[in-house]
């Protein structure tokens, strides 16, 4: 029962199904298993590390300069972008060429930036969440939620792109309707 509750909570807090963040990226990611794994892992990396950086920004930035939040988040994500590119380059120069594509897609993605703003918003509403542990956990949770939504979409990806679907609705229109139906189910669970 505990696991079911956790699963429902994860679905209900899902950034794609409830806030439509990163929808276009998930369409690209669901195309193949390789893309799915790589994109979701890199996005989870960005949301988790980005959440820790967002905590630093929120703690250090005085509230009267809140209009600078986006700029600070962009600078921190930029820093992470450079760090990840450098780390992956030194880990494996051969694999770097294929991995860097996913880092480029993920860095300034709506899913990543949206996660940072959502976590920050929740923390400002509930001071109990205003600590680095909560930020990092929420970042990780958002990444796992992205994986979950990608898996749900990939399960139907080939059928939604098959000849059985009318040509006009094949691909992204059918995927949007499908995500809408899943989102409706999640909305009913809340």
């Amino acid at each position, binding site marked *: 029962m505990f696991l079911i509750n956790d699963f429902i909570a994860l679905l209900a807090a899902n950034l794609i*199904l409830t806030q439509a963040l990163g929808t276009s990226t998930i369409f690209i990611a669901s195309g193949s298993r390789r893309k799915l794994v790589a994109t979701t892992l890199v996005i989870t990396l960005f949301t988790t590390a980005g959440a820790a950086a967002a905590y630093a920004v929120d703690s250090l930035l005085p509230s009267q300069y809140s209009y600078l939040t986006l700029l600070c988040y962009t600078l921190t994500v930029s820093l992470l972008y*450079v760090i990840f590119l450098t780390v992956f380059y030194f880990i494996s120069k051969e694999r770097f060429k294929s991995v860097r594509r996913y880092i480029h897609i993920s860095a300034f993605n709506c899913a990543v930036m949206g996660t940072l703003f959502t976590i920050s918003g929740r923390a400002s509403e509930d001071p109990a969440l205003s600590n680095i542990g909560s930020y990092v956990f929420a970042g990780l949770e958002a990444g796992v939620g992205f994986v979950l939504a990608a898996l749900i979409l990939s399960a139907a990806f080939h059928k939604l792109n098959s000849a059985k679907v009318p040509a006009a609705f094949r691909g*992204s229109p059918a995927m949007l309707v499908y995500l809408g139906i899943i989102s409706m189910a999640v909305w009913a669970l809340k």
Partner: protein
Amino acid sequence: MKNKNQSVFDGLLADNTVLSSCMVISPVIICGDTLRNAEALAMAFTAITLLSVLLCSFIPKRLPYAVKIIIYAVISSLIYIPVRMAAQEFFPGIITRIGIYFPLLAVNSLIVVQTEAKFFRMKRLKMIPALLFYVAGFDAVILITAFIRELLAYGTINNRMVDADTLISGLGQPFGGFIFLGLLCGAYRAVRSLFPAEQSTGRE
């Protein structure tokens, strides 16, 4: 670039940012449920995207891709600051309602990704009208979507009550946004397929 013979008008219909490329769809799905939201988003998107892409076009092309992307994101984040201040004057209350989708406009795919893939491959004189039509394409879709969703979900047009017999309240929810946009994309493709010239390009 999908087609070498791309016209400057493509962004409006043939290669619409939302309906054809499925980019920048989260604000349309979540905030495109009332005309007031849509007007604020369209205004902000127009100002941020036009100014950012124009300024970014002066960045040297020989810089590494990652460096250019970072500079584009920083420029658009800087442009976001005065745009947000202006929006708070013109649309008080709406900006709070739009929430995180307002700053997210500054890191939209049209600025971060399409600048390199599309706009900066054009000469500046062709790029400016093409960019205007891409922005107008997004604005048109969000305004049309918001008009229909507001009318059907809440029975109002721009917050004014109208005599609507049947309301579909789900259209005001995120899932309603997903389904409505999916149907709109399908209808758009069906209409496009009626024109032989569109079929022969073999897009999508």
